[in-house]
């Protein structure tokens, strides 16, 4: 099945810093989503971005499907950005539209 790798696995930032999270995938995809998991376990949808670039406030994302990667940019980070960020993809070869998740990037933003 499709493999998803996220980097870095852990990231510590000072409040106000910028960061880039990366997601590599091993096959063509028809869905790519970025999620933020809060301390209570809820997965919050950040972007649905199988290709192209999107922006939402301080967050933006770019997916280059032909090169099999996606990037999540966080600018002017805040302590509330702390948590785990997951990239998840579905492939035309997957059953239904099941999502395969990467291992996540654990972000801590210090005040």
């Amino acid at each position, binding site marked *: 099945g499709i493999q*998803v790798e996220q980097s870095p696995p852990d990231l510590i930032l000072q409040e106000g810093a910028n960061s880039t999270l990366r997601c590599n995938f091993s096959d063509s995809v*028809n*869905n790519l*989503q970025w*999620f933020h998991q809060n301390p*209570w*376990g*809820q*997965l919050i*949808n950040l972007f*649905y971005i*199988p290709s192209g670039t999107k922006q939402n406030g301080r967050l933006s994302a770019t997916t280059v499907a032909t090169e099999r990667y996606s990037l999540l940019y966080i600018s002017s980070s805040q302590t509330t950005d702390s948590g785990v960020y*997951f990239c*998840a993809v*579905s492939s*035309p070869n*997957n*059953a*239904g*539209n*099941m*999502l*395969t*998740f*990467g*291992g*996540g990037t654990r972000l801590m933003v210090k005040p």
Partner: protein
Amino acid sequence: DAGVTQSPTHLIKTRGQHVTLRCSPISGHKSVSWYQQVLGQGPQFIFQYYEKEERGRGNFPDRFSARQFPNYSSELNVNALLLGDSALYLCASSLHMVIGTEAFFGQGTRLTVV
């Protein structure tokens, strides 16, 4: 509009027992999927249901089963619980099964098996 709702939020069970977890999708959504997330890892796909039929199954033993009801809500059942079944169980809702449909997740049920 209400998002995906799951119940209960927390559950403690003893090895060998059976558990039923419930999920209500976003209104109008017809597809429900279940995922298991063990500590420190990303969620793993268990089942997908669409229009009350199983449309996908992950690599989980037969102790895991699910169903979807006419109102599109769903139950996940786990028999003969093992300590290793302790995890956060997440339900995802999507509008349909067309390739590339966006998924939305509930807050999860945290199951502890002792």
